[in-house]
């Protein structure tokens, strides 16, 4: 009994096709990836044991993640928008178990594929240069600017507390300016896209271009192909403002927007 009980199917994505097809040896560790259809809906899978892929090595997990995403890219190219699975999701059982899983949610998967058809996920991130914001605030807030000037003219020791007070007021002003910017770009994106998800502000910077800058807004959005250019033009306006930089990435499979019906 051991062997059959241990059989599993690693899931990459759900797509629209009624054919069983070999997509290539492109899966995790070069596994063979197949589509397993039920009706007009199929899952891209590879055959494996019903055990999660686990590693303590960071580079191994990165490799798997890249391979997983590559399968999703290939499937998207071939079949249009897919519903992507998270990393390391394994269904216990054989191809029949996959078919059964699809069969039980066939209507929901079909309508979800329909809803997301012709759309993809994009990320818009707004970065700001804090010192540029500070300059801008000092230009606009005469009171703060005057305070800063008066501190300069005092002897060093006596100005310490004033200096701290000024720093705190400035920091508050910068924070509220960043919140304003997040709201502004959120509003702008929301007007142009089908769906939006505001993500937490992470401290990790994606690449060198934004070194030394703060992430002000991190927004995921679902876009129809024809909305990409209008959003790009709107982002140009923000990107050209002093002290601001926009990072616009995509298209991605709809990781943030694909939904399954609630399972009982």
């Amino acid at each position, binding site marked *: 009994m051991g062997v059959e009980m241990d059989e*599993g199917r690693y*899931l990459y994505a*759900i797509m629209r096709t009624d054919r069983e097809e070999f997509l290539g040896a492109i899966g995790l560790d070069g596994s063979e990836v197949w589509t397993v259809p039920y009706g007009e809906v199929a899952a891209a899978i590879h055959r494996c044991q*019903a*055990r*999660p*892929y*686990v*590693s*303590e090595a*960071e580079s191994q*997990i*990165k490799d798997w*993640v*890249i391979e*997983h*995403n590559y399968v999703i890219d290939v499937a998207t190219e071939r079949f249009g928008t897919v*519903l*992507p*699975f*998270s*990393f*390391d*999701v*394994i*269904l*216990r*059982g054989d191809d029949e*178990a996959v078919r059964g*899983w699809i069969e039980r949610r066939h209507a929901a998967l079909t309508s979800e594929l329909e809803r997301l058809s012709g759309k993809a996920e*994009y*990320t818009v991130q707004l970065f700001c240069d804090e010192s540029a914001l500070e300059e801008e605030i000092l230009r606009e807030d005469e009171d703060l600017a005057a305070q800063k000037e008066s501190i300069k003219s005092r002897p060093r020791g006596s100005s310490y507390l004033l200096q701290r007070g000024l720093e705190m007021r400035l920091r508050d002003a910068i924070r509220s300016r960043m919140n304003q910017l997040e709201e502004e770009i959120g509003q702008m994106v929301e007007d142009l896209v089908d769906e939006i998800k505001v993500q*937490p502000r*992470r401290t*990790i910077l*994606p*690449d060198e271009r934004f070194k030394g800058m703060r992430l002000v807004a991190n927004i995921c959005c679902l876009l129809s192909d024809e909305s*990409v250019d209008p959003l*790009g033009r709107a*982002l*140009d306006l923000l*990107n050209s403002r002093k002290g601001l930089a*926009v*990072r*616009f*990435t*995509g*298209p*991605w*499979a709809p*990781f*943030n927007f*694909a939904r*399954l019906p609630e*399972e*009982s």
Partner: protein
Amino acid sequence: MRPERADGIVDLLDRLLDKGLLLNADIVITVAGIPLLGVSLNAALAGMETMLHHGMLEDWDRSTRAWHLSQARIEPPLQGGEILFSGLGSIWHGRGTLKTWKPGIWYVTEKELLLWSREPANIIFQSELSMIRGVIGGNEEVSLILDGGEERIRMDRAEQFCQTLAGALALPAR
């Protein structure tokens, strides 16, 4: 501007480790027993306790709860007696090639001290109370004095842990 498909892996990790479809019913398990998140792979690998400790999971309560649930579902093999304390934590594993904090759930009962991990299900640390000579609380971690030596451990609510354990041992907490 045109969207770009960044070659950086950060965007990928963010999506594949924390987003995308999951299964509930037929699922085996996901993601290595700890929720590997896009926050930082280093942090994810360092283990749950470290992430909780550094407050990295504030935005991730869904994953945290899921992990917590998955950790709590299987009963630990306790020898009986009332459970006086339980909470997420870890123990320093400094022997061998892999030096790391091993995460799990600490249990203090009337009979024993146990660090239990559900996935993979195993006992990471177990000691009869009679083998424990003392417990020293610190800010970051707790020192456990045993007959055979000392263990470095961590947990949520370390102060409560120390008081409970010291009480159970009938020792004054230091």
